[in-house]
C-alpha cells in the first residue's frame, strides 16, 4: 500500500500543528464555536450526544498491521478500549476528550494516519472495493487512482467550503460494485474503451440521505490522464452553483436534478475545456509512481483447492460453512480472500476492542502480508490468505469472535451507531440489529435464505445505507417515540435501486416479528434459484404488504 515520502509527512505534520493551534485558540475563546466548527469537523471531530466523536480516515479502506496496533493503543490511552468501523471504511472513537485530539492526531501521523476531511462540507475520504487488486474480474487495481484523488483532494484550497459534504467512490470490478458508486456524489468506474485505453465512466449526483438518488452517467469515457482536471471541473461547477440557502437541498444531486444531468454535463465540459491541459492533468509517470506502491506481494506458486483443504472441509461442517460464506475467490491460484466478520450477535456491528485490533494486526502479519482492508459493510478483510492455511486461520479466529459465518446473509447487518451514540439519530439502531440477529440464530436457516442485505439507519441521513438494503430499516421519531419504517428492494450493486417503503412504521419490539413475516413471504414464493431481491423484483411489494399488515 501507499507509503509516505518526505512531502506527505511534512504536510501532515504541519496539519497536526495547525489543528493544535486552532484547538488552543478555541479553548482560549479566541475562536467562536461556529468558527471552530468547520475546522474541527475537517479534522474528524464531532461533538456528540454523550461525548465527542473522532472519525479517523482509512483511505480507501487500507490498513497496515502497525497502524492497527497504533489504533489499539489510542483506544486504550484516550478512549474506552474500543473502536467502531463505519460504513465509509473509516474508524470512529466514541469517547475522546476534545483537548486530547491534537495529541491523538500526532500519534496517528507517526503511522501515516489522520482524520483529514472525514467530516465537514469538503471532499471526504475516497472509498473503493475491498477486494481491489485481488479479484479476477477487474480491469485494473483502482487503489492507485484513489490515492491520486486523496492527494488532490487533501486541503484543496478551492473546495474546503463546499455547499455540503462530497463523497467519491471508485469501482473496477466488472461483475460487482462493492463500492456502491451509483449512490455517491461522484462515482467512477474503471473501464476500457474500444481502442483499449483505460479510463473512467463518470456518475454524478447519486446519494442517499433525505433525497435518495441513483446517480446518472455524465460521461461514458474519461481518459485516465484527465481524471483530476475533470474532477476539478465538476467540483468547481458545484462549488459555484450548488445551493447554499438550504442545507437539505445543498448536495450535488439536487443541483444535477435541477439543471438536468444533460445540462450539468455540458456545464462541466465547458469548464473542463478551460483546464484540461493545465499541469493538473496527470502524467503517465505520476500514475506509475503511485502504482509501484500497489504491486503484487510475494505470492508463492500454489495450486487451487489443495488436498488438505478438501479433506478439512469434508471433516468439519462448521469450517465448510465458513469457507462457503466468508471466503471469496482470489485471482492467484492457491490463495483466497477472507472476511473477518464483526457481526457477532450481542456486539454492535462494526465494533472492535483494542485487543481485537491487535489480534487483527497479528493475523494480518501471519496470514496476509501485513495488510487488511475495511469494508463498507463494517467487516475486515484479509486479502491474501493461502488456501492451505485457511483451516489454521479459522481455528485461530473462532475464539476471537471473527468467524461468525454470516457474510452477506440476513444477520450481516449494516448498522449506524444510532441513538445510542449519535446526536443526529431519531432512533436507536443497534438494539434492533441485535434483536433481529437473535431471532435468526439458526445458521442453517440463515444459509438457506442466501444473500440478503439488511441495512439499518437511525435517521434519514442514512449512514446505515437503508435505501439500498434489500430490506431497509429507518428509525423515525413520532411525537418523541421511536418507530421504524421498512423499505424493500434496494440494492447498491451494479443494478442499483432504491427501496420502496412498505407502509406504516413499527415499534421496536415488533421488528423481529415483522422481519420474520417478510422473510416468510420470500420463502413461500421463491423459486429454487432466486435470491430475496430476485423474488421481490418478480412479485413486487404487495404480497409482503398483505402478510405484514394482515
Amino acid at each position: 500500500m501507499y507509503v509516505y515520502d518526505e512531502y506527505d509527512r511534512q504536510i501532515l505534520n504541519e496539519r497536526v500543528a495547525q489543528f493544535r493551534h486552532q484547538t488552543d485558540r478555541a479553548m482560549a475563546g479566541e475562536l467562536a464555536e461556529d468558527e471552530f466548527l468547520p475546522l474541527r469537523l475537517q479534522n474528524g471531530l464531532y461533538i456528540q450526544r454523550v461525548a465527542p466523536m473522532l472519525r479517523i480516515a482509512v483511505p480507501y479502506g487500507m490498513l497496515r498491521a502497525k497502524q492497527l496496533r497504533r489504533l489499539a493503543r489510542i483506544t486504550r490511552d484516550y478512549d474506552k478500549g474500543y473502536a467502531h468501523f463505519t460504513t465509509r471504511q473509516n474508524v470512529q472513537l466514541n469517547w475522546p476528550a476534545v483537548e486530547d485530539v491534537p495529541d491523538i492526531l500526532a500519534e496517528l501521523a507517526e503511522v501515516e494516519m489522520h482524520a483529514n476531511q472525514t467530516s465537514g462540507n469538503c471532499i471526504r475520504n475516497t472509498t473503493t472495493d475491498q477486494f481491489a487488486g485481488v479479484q479476477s474480474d477487474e480491469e485494473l487495481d483502482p487503489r492507485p487512482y484513489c490515492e491520486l484523488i486523496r492527494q488532490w483532494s487533501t486541503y484543496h484550497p478551492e473546495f474546503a467550503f463546499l455547499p455540503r459534504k462530497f463523497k467519491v467512490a471508485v469501482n473496477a470490478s466488472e461483475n460487482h460494485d462493492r463500492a456502491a458508486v451509483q449512490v455517491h456524489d461522484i462515482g467512477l468506474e474503471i473501464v476500457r474503451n474500444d481502442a483499449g485505453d483505460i479510463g473512467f465512466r463518470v456518475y454524478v449526483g447519486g446519494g442517499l440521505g433525505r433525497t435518495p438518488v441513483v446517480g446518472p452517467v455524465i460521461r461514458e469515457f474519461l481518459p485516465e490522464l484527465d481524471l483530476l482536471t475533470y474532477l476539478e471541473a465538476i467540483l468547481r461547477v458545484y462549488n459555484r452553483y450548488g445551493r447554499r440557502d438550504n442545507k437539505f437541498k445543498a448536495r450535488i444531486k439536487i443541483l444535477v436534478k435541477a439543471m438536468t444531468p444533460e445540462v450539468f454535463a455540458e456545464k462541466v465540459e465547458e469548464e473542463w475545456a478551460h483546464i484540461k491541459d493545465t499541469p493538473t492533468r496527470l502524467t503517465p509517470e505520476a500514475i506509475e509512481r503511485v502504482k509501484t506502491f500497489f504491486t503484487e506481494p510475494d505470492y508463492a506458486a500454489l495450486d487451487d483447492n489443495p488436498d488438505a483443504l478438501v479433506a478439512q472441509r469434508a471433516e468439519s461442517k462448521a469450517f465448510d460453512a465458513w469457507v462457503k460464506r466468508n471466503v471469496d475467490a482470489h485471482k492467484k491460484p492457491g490463495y483466497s480472500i477472507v472476511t473477518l466478520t464483526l457481526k457477532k450477535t450481542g456486539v454492535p456491528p462494526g465494533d472492535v476492542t483494542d485487543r481485537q485490533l491487535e489480534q487483527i494486526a497479528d493475523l494480518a502479519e501471519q496470514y496476509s502480508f501485513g495488510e487488511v482492508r475495511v469494508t463498507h459493510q463494517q467487516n475486515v478483510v484479509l486479502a491474501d490468505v493461502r488456501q492451505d492455511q485457511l483451516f489454521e486461520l479459522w481455528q485461530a479466529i473462532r475464539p476471537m469472535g471473527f468467524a461468525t459465518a454470516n457474510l452477506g446473509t440476513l444477520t450481516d447487518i449494516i448498522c449506524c451507531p444510532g441513538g445510542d451514540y449519535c446526536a443526529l439519530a431519531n432512533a436507536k439502531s443497534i438494539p434492533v440489529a441485535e434483536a433481529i440477529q437473535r431471532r435468526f440464530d439458526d445458521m442453517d436457516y440463515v444459509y438457506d435464505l442466501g444473500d440478503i442485505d439488511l441495512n439499518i439507519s437511525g435517521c434519514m441521513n442514512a449512514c446505515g445505507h437503508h435505501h439500498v438494503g434489500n430490506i431497509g430499516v429507518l428509525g423515525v421519531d413520532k411525537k418523541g417515540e421511536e418507530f421504524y419504517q421498512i423499505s424493500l428492494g434496494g440494492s447498491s450493486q451494479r443494478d442499483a435501486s432504491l427501496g420502496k417503503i412498505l407502509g406504516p412504521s413499527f415499534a421496536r419490539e415488533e421488528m423481529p416479528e415483522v422481519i420474520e413475516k417478510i422473510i416468510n413471504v420470500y420463502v413461500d414464493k421463491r423459486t429454487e434459484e432466486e435470491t430475496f431481491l430476485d423474488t421481490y423484483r418478480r412479485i413486487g411489494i404487495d404480497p409482503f404488504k398483505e402478510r405484514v399488515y394482515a
Partner: protein
Amino acid sequence: MPDLIRHDGIHNDEWTLVSAPEEGQELILPDGPALLPAAVWKENRNHYAGRNDIGIWFDSHEEPEHYSDLIGDLPVIAVNFPKFTDGRGYSIARLLRERYGYTGELRAVGDVLLDQLFYMKRCGFNAYALRADKDINQAEHCLNVFSNTYQAAADIEEPLFRRRAS
C-alpha cells in the same frame, strides 16, 4: 483607518468599499480611492476609464465571466465573503487569476478570518481585510501554515505529482 494585510506586511487601507445604491439612488463616490460594486462599475465603465483610484468588488454569487475582458487595468479587485463558510469566493479568485489573467491587487473582504487565509492565498488573493475582531498579528503565521501543497492553484503552477516525478 482600518488595517489591510498584504504579503509584505500590514498597511493602512485607504480604499473605501461602496455598497450598491438603493433603487433610484445615485452612487456617491467617497473621497479617496473607492471599490465599486462590479455591476455598477460595468454600466459606467467609460466614465471611470483610466482612473487608478477606482476598483471593483464582486459578491460571492457573481460571475467574473461577464467581466473577463474589462478588468485587466483595474488596480484593485475585491471579492466578498458574506460568511466565511461561503466558499464561492475561492473559485472566483482562481478564475480571475488563472483564467482572466488579472495581475493587480486581489483582496478578500467581508467575513475574513485567520484560518482561511492560507486557502485564500493559494487561490490568488494577495490582500486581506481581516475581520476587525481577529488578531492581525497572527495573520503572517496563518498565511504560511503549510510549506508545501499537493495541488496546483494560483500560487503554484505544478501540482506535487509533477514536482515529485522530476
